[in-house]
């Protein structure tokens, strides 16, 4: 077993270092944050003997998948992507016979040729993936451009695609998960968003996560106008032995903030807000702009991507910094998530991957997001 410790400014970059050095089969066995919180150390292990056995087992299945694709134009698309990677016109490649020509005539060394082939393979897969997830055109182009400009070595394999995609996501998006695993933290977050996106369930999940780890959490709601708004949250939290505070107005919320315990995170549920109603947004702002509160947008995956982008823009004057995505488990195409984060220039925080209160709230990082994007496409293709 190989054992190595990687130190990086954040978890995402540490994961990338691990993936680059030890590969996909490495297992994270411990993580630690330095005393100043400026870097993380992640120790990963790899049993190469077992990884090789897994690779042999997986390789047969992989070839079956991709062999089927080749006659349907896989090679043509592959070469088109090669041409784009080399700055040539896409029409340079037509069919299997043409496949070797541009590369064979190239004077570059064989390793450079192979590297180009690997990169082209990645670009082809990236293109297919972004199309599948219905990523809006402008964002699609931006991500493809990043993919073309990647200066890292990629291999023509699912592993290489995952690695390249992780890198592209790292370079374009920001990631800042909730501090759910920090025993002492003073986050004061208010979940905001349109009605029916799963804000209350997300709050219940946050509470369940903290309670399961024996860490304190306080919960408050300003959603006392909607029929059953408070009761719905109470139904979740009562099982956990948590009391829900209710703030009916701005002054009550300010008082509740003053009385909240230092070092204990406070999560605040809000009423569903119509992003196209100025009056509703104004009302929400009265609460969400109170000093010390961070409004965190909640959106359900599966929206139309342009609609998601418009929604984020509508809420953006609250000073949004982070986005929680719900219903990942019941959605195949996730272009809306990417579009929302891109439109608002806000960080992806967490995502809910199950309808159960206990569990299913996961921090988003580039590697995780890449894995989900790839997995959803594979699930769709069966």
């Amino acid at each position, binding site marked *: *077993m190989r054992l190595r410790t990687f130190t990086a400014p954040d978890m995402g970059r540490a994961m990338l270092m691990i993936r680059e050095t030890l590969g996909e089969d490495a297992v994270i066995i411990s993580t630690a944050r330095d005393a100043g919180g400026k870097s993380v150390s992640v*120790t990963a292990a790899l049993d190469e003997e077992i990884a090789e056995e897994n690779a042999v087992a997986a390789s047969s299945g992989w070839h079956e998948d991709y062999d089927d694709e080749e006659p349907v134009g896989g090679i043509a698309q592959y070469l088109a992507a090669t041409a784009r990677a080399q700055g040539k016109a896409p029409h340079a490649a037509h069919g299997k016979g043409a496949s070797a020509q541009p590369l064979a005539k190239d004077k570059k060394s064989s390793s450079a040729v192979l590297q180009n082939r690997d990169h082209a393979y990645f670009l082809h897969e990236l293109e297919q993936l972004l199309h599948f997830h219905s990523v809006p055109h402008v964002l699609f182009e931006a991500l493809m451009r990043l993919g073309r400009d990647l200066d890292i070595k990629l291999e023509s394999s699912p592993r290489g695609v995952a690695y390249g995609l992780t890198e592209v996501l790292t370079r374009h998006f920001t990631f800042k998960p909730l501090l759910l695993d920090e025993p002492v933290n003073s986050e004061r977050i208010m979940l905001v968003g349109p009605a029916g996106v799963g804000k209350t369930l997300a709050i219940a999940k946050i509470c369940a996560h903290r309670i399961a780890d024996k860490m304190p959490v306080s919960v408050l709601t300003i959603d006392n106008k909607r029929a059953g708004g408070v009761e719905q949250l109470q139904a979740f939290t009562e099982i956990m032995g948590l009391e829900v505070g209710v703030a009916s107005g701005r002054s009550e919320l300010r008082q509740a903030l003053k009385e909240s315990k230092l070092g204990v995170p406070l999560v605040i549920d809000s009423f569903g807000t119509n992003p196209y109603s100025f009056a509703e947004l104004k009302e929400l702002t009265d609460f969400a702009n109170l000093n010390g509160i961070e409004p965190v947008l909640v959106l359900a995956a599966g929206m139309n991507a342009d609609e998601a982008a418009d929604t984020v823009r509508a809420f953006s004057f609250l000073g949004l910094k982070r986005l929680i995505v719900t219903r990942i488990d019941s959605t195949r195409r996730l272009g809306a998530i990417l579009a929302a984060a891109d439109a608002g220039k806000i960080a992806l925080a967490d995502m809910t991957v199950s309808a159960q209160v206990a569990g299913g709230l996961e921090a988003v990082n580039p590697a995780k997001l890449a894995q989900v994007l790839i997995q959803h496409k594979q699930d769709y293709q069966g």
Partner: protein
Amino acid sequence: MDDTTGLKDSQKPAQPVALPQGDNIIAVASGKGGVGKTWLSITLAMHIARSGRRVLLFDGDIGLANIDVQLGLTPKNDLASVFAGKITLADAVMPYEGEQLDIIAGRSGSGGFGTLGGARLEDVKRQLLELSENYDLVIIDLGAGVEQHVRSLSAIAKRCLVVLTDEPTSMTDAYAFIKLSAQKQPRPEIQIVVNQAATLKEGERTYAAISKACHSFLKFIPPLAGIIRRDTKVKDAIRSQKPIIVKAPGATAAVDAAALSVKLMVKT
């Protein structure tokens, strides 16, 4: 007469028969040397002996034996004489004065199990199994490393304590030992002992790390037997060639080892 070889049964070479596991035999392994395996073997043996059990401590680290060194003993007979065929294993047993503890010492520099033929090693194992019937518990202090002879000796133990520290080399070597031992049938009950932990919490982290690796790659999690905290008094005791429970019975490490010995006795 054998139909295919034409040899009489008595002329055929003896087929190796796997020896059974001794229910009351515990092997203490580590993979990496220098993690406190011998110290732990001695301390556990002493604690358990003092609880009224008859205990045999077997120095399985033959070529680099040091149980006798840590206890300041000068054995008249040792394993080197057993290997030379001069005495039986029972003849090499020496009582540790004042305790219900017997010791079979090795001899440092005599050449290890690795230099023995397979037949001789099997004979020693068979004799040890026979001897174990006279005791409540036999503790084998295995040599460092993962070589075949080390694993072969551990195979007669029903349980195997794998000692490790938080050092990466210790973790990887312990993992190697666990992996190779787990391939044996029947698989011994492998348990983890974290030694020299800065705190109990740190010890738990070390255990979490090795168990994650085992779970991910080997698909099983060896349970945690105990955590022994780092303690300078351990070194003092070794330097003075006295067991820690004699030299400093209230030391943190001695207390942690005592807790571990209680756990082991429950099953003994």
